[in-house]
């Protein structure tokens, strides 16, 4: 069995030399080419003119009222759903005529029910989503036409549309049955996982662009830290023994490298966090309770090579950004050898990664600036949606045809919101 695996990998390598293949095809129709040295020309595509999006006007209890109750939703890492809504309302791709729309967007802020600490509670989110879908299916004919296949939703929470923060519970729930045919735009991405369905678009978590801008230091400040990380290694509140949180990977990093002078890792919250990232060559981005984190965005913005320790993770815009050329991927089982892995990367490769990171279109694609700028994450989402067009004829149902089961899922979800 092993030898076939190696043969397969060998064939892939050869194929890679002959044809530059992308790491993760998501069912696009057009091939993209990339000039070596710059990160994906696809990032600079302009979606205007390539698609039309119709925004449903839902009652304000789905969006405005929620935001009014807790304005903290605008600053946390799930804020992409709010900013995407605002962007679409004033974007040139928006159309007021639903007959000519390619995609339909339902603005519902499912990640805005926050605890006093600021963490979102997902318990009401399935009901909220279900209620929104019931509304659009009864007031407009477009949902029933395709049962949501030309609709897209933003679900930036921990495990996307599984609507739970605990992985086992999320797997158990699975994706909300009503969203089975819709396109999901989410931050969570892990291969062969229940909560990532085929055709989803992975986006980066929200990171405040102005705040990062104010902490920039001069480019010529020499990078003197080899590896940098700030964050928890053990989540003593929820997993005191260790081994559960981050699948033990973060704890392994700590235990193996806590006395290594090359690794500047600790659990402190320094005020110079952003500045320190700009003085580091590598920034660790290990998984936590979920595989994604805003550290990836911060590392890209500050030019620090991200070291991604999360098995099978799907990174944002993976079909447009050549992540394996930009970051370093380390398997969780190889964490004890992290220092060997990082020091054995040839310097030319490191310099090339830094050049790719320095590409402004790369940095722009990770951000959600207000107001929107060309090439930013909003546009990348639209590019992703445009690449999925035209819709296959089979998604359109004849009248009376039904696929979705409106009563599927846990009983608690069926309660009205």
């Amino acid at each position, binding site marked *: 069995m092993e030898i076939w695996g190696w043969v397969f990998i060998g064939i892939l390598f050869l194929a890679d030399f002959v044809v530059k293949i992308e790491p993760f095809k998501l069912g696009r129709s057009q091939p993209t080419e990339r000039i070596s040295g710059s990160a994906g020309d696809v990032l600079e595509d302009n979606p205007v003119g390539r698609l039309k999006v119709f925004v449903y006007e839902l009652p304000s209890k789905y969006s405005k009222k929620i935001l009014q109750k807790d304005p903290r939703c605008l600053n946390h890492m799930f804020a992409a759903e709010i900013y995407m809504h605002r962007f679409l309302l004033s974007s040139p791709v928006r159309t007021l005529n639903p007959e000519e729309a390619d995609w339909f967007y339902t603005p519902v802020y499912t990640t805005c029910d926050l605890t006093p600490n600021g963490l979102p509670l997902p318990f009401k989110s399935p009901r909220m989503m279900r209620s929104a879908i019931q509304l659009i299916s009864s007031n407009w004919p477009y949902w029933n036409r395709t049962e949501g296949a030309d609709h897209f939703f933003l679900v930036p929470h921990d495990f996307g549309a599984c609507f739970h923060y605990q*992985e086992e519970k999320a797997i158990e729930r699975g994706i909300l049955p009503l969203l089975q045919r819709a396109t999901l735009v989410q931050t969570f991405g892990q291969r062969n996982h229940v909560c990532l369905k085929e055709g989803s678009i992975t986006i980066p978590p929200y990171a405040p662009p102005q705040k990062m801008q104010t902490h920039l230091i001069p480019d010529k400040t020499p990078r003197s830290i080899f590896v940098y990380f700030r964050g928890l290694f053990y989540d003593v509140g929820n997993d005191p023994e*260790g081994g559960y949180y981050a699948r033990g990977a973060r*704890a392994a990093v700590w235990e193996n490298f806590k006395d290594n002078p090359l690794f500047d890792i600790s659990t402190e919250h320094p005020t110079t966090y952003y500045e320190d990232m700009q003085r580091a060559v590598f920034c660790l981005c290990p998984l936590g309770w979920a595989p994604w984190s805003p550290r990836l965005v911060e590392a890209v913005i500050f030019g620090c090579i991200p070291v991604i320790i999360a098995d099978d993770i799907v990174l944002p815009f993976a079909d447009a950004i050549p992540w394996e050329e930009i970051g370093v991927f380390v398997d969780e089982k190889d964490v004890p050898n992290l220092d060997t892995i990082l020091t054995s990367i040839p310097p030319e490769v490191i310099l090339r990664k830094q050049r790719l990171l320095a590409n402004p279109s790369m940095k722009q694609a990770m951000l959600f600036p207000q107001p929107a700028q060309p090439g930013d994450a909003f546009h990348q989402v639209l590019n992703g949606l445009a690449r999925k067009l035209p819709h296959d004829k089979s998604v359109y149902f004849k009248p009376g045809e039904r696929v979705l089961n409106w009563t599927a899922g846990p009983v608690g979800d069926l309660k009205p919101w």
Partner: protein
Amino acid sequence: MELLNRRRPFFWLVLHGLSCLISLLLGFRFSRLVFLLLSTSSTYTSPFHSPTELAKTLDIRSVIPADPVGNVPLPFPNKTATNSRVVVGRHGIRIRPWPHPNPVEVMKAHRIIERVQTEQRLQFGVKDPRKIIVVTPTYVRTFQSLHLTGVMHSLMLVPYDLVWIVVEAGGVSNETASLIAKSGLRTIHVGFNQRMPNSWDGRHKLETKMRLRGLRIVREKKLDGIVIFADDSNMHSMELFDEIQNVKWFGAVSVGILASSANIDETVVEKRGEEENPRMPVQGPACNVSNMLAGWHTFNTLPFAGKTAVYIDDRATVLPRKLEWSGFILNSSLLWKDGDKPEWMKDIDTLDGDIESPLDLVKDPSVVEPLGSCGRRVLLWWLRVEARADSKFPPRWIIDPPLEITVPSKRTPWPDTPPELPSHEKPVIRIQEPIIKHTTKTRTSRSKRRSKRKHDETRTDRGTTGFDKTLQN
């Protein structure tokens, strides 16, 4: 445990309770360990992490997925119901057998960091850096080693091409030559035929002449680059060398003046308190709001009037000149005979007399470019510290091997030989004492002989020339 709960619940309840108690003792979940031991056939081991000391000795890997619902797994990591390579649940914390830094890797990492920083400098640093020509006047004295080593090390760190012109008062000496040879820099060592006077005033004048001699060398050899004056007792920051690359023709930077007072004079301190505006110990260009040169900051010498040092070894404050040469930067093409240079630059061959300040090199002082964010950044410091005029030091700071002949020393701690010290020899012996303390009796005899100025034939020729210089003022 949970899977087997169906059969004989009482037995399993007791067992569960027992393992709970043991877990309390050990500090980790004992039941999982037992389950693992019973069921898994894991082939590779890595140490299992636990907070207690006891568990650290265990060498078992536990990959038991949590099983709340029953649809997930078996303890084997590669066979799961969800068809994913990644298993949800508790994993072992992998620690390698010796979790400490590997020196080979640390070295490799440092080389990577160096390469990254070189690339950064190439990209964001100065484009097309010009050669730096450093002119340093010096002379042999006790503190020369201290000062010149400092300058030398600063120059060795400069990442640009460098030429070091060392002009030495009293002619070229082996002392200085051996010192600057250690730098590995390209040096031009010339002698100047006058001896360095003992007064600060005379010293400043001679230094000016020596600097002009250095500039003449630049002209003769047609050296191309940026000329700076690095006095041997100054301290330079590395940013200075980056900043001077921005000069076009004639620039000036701010110099921090560290006027040392050997005696803390109370009256001086009081006076300082009474002043309204505190004096900034900075000399350099002053700019107006639009970042144009508006004037000059000079060091205020009034509070020190009458209390300044006149001779090099006076224990009083040493003051700088109005404008120190070390704060000025020239483009070397200003010094060439031919070639295009602005007409405001005077020809250095025509200035042989005393020039008071570097601004006398130009006809119009307003052409000077202020560097270092318009003089706001102090990039080097001026300090003058010298030893007493008659101080001696071993030549090249090497203590010669002891001589064969033993002569009783007159300055030993033994009570039967009372110390006889002729008064004129006192300063010499005081300086030599530190050497005496660390050496044997024979060495003291040697120093005694030295103080008697007996030039022995066994001495090497480099022996006493250094002393003579300092003694003959």
